[in-house]
């Protein structure tokens, strides 16, 4: 069950977020809320993303292209981490002989 929030709720929930900043993030597609019949709907992930965006904006004065670049790298890294996590769990569950083969190959490629 995912909760959805309206733009007004999001602005009150996220420190440092103003109506105007939210509009800019959405227009620049840094945040992409669901489009519903009753207007844009923000998910928990959008709220967390907006908190990070506000922190980057306040702490590093990131905006525009620089913000796009940083968020693209953050998203790539986290997707890679998620894939890597799944892969590591899968490998760890394999019996010894399979893992030994994988180990040898990884060590050869990465040493």
């Amino acid at each position, binding site marked *: 069950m995912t909760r959805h929030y309206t733009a007004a709720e999001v602005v009150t929930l996220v420190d440092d977020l103003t109506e105007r900043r939210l509009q800019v993030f959405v227009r620049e597609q840094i945040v992409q809320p669901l489009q519903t019949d009753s207007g844009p709907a923000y998910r928990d992930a959008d709220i967390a993303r907006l908190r990070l965006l506000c922190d980057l904006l306040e702490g590093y004065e990131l905006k525009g292209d620089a913000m796009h670049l940083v968020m693209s790298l953050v998203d790539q*890294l986290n997707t*890679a*981490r998620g894939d*890597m*996590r799944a892969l*590591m*769990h899968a*490998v*760890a*569950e*394999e*019996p*010894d002989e399979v*893992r*030994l083969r*994988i*180990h*040898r190959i*990884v*060590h050869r*490629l*990465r*040493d």
Partner: protein
Amino acid sequence: MAADPYAALGLTKSATDAEIKKAYRTIAKEAHPDLNPDPVAAERFKTASAAYDLLKDPDQRRRFDAGEIDGQGQENPQRRYYREHAEASGHPYSQGYGFEGDPDLSDVFADLFGRRGRGFGAHPGAQDMRGQDYRFNLEIDFITAAKGGKARVSLPEGGDLEVAIPEGVRDGQTIRLRGKGGRGMGRGGAGDAYLTIAIAPHAQFNRDGNDVSVTLAIAMDEAVLGAKVPVPTIDGPVNLTIPRGATTGQRLRLRGRGIKGGDQHVELKIVMPPAIDEDLARFMEEWRKDHAYDPRKGGAS
């Protein structure tokens, strides 16, 4: 020599083969060294000829357009993007990306890739390998899940393992038992065991998060007059005050009697006596003469 053969012919990249030929012919006519003694013209002719030689060959033209060769037809050195350096092992700027300190996966990660924090390439020896992770499904009863307790799982290599079930464990939750997986090789540590918990349904209790609910049967007289009746909770029966005039579907709350400080909800259900005796029937007939009511009025019928 012109860096850009198109410019040498006064053209751009979009020029057609016919335009290239025509431009070359025009320059050749004006600047041919046999016809025009001006050294500037001779230089212009040379440049245009070289450009035409390159562009009239469709393959050479394609390779120039793709940046594979320069205006002299020389191979361009392949540009190596930073990424090719950065992905390589032992890269001077390589960084951890969050698994070194990961409570679940730091051992698995170090086993495969070494400890990056302490100088990259600090791999364990080839003979050292962490043990296998085991995954089990474990069904436990409702009360053990609610209150915590012990359960046993049998291990693939024989024997069994006593497992402490934490209080309030949820259906589908995974419990990790560190070092309870397969034995490691060499200096490699043991793997972990993961238990995915399934909670068997209970005859009386239902669960929603840390709240527990039960349906409590009450007698007609208890409903009319109110009463104090025992109701089961996960910690044993407690007395619940039924208010006068209670009705089926009414929910009462026992605060803090659920799981880990959650509540227990008691839904009342009026149960008729097993048989309607003469006394009751007579009383009801008298009663309804003056007190009949329509329970379907006002609400959903």
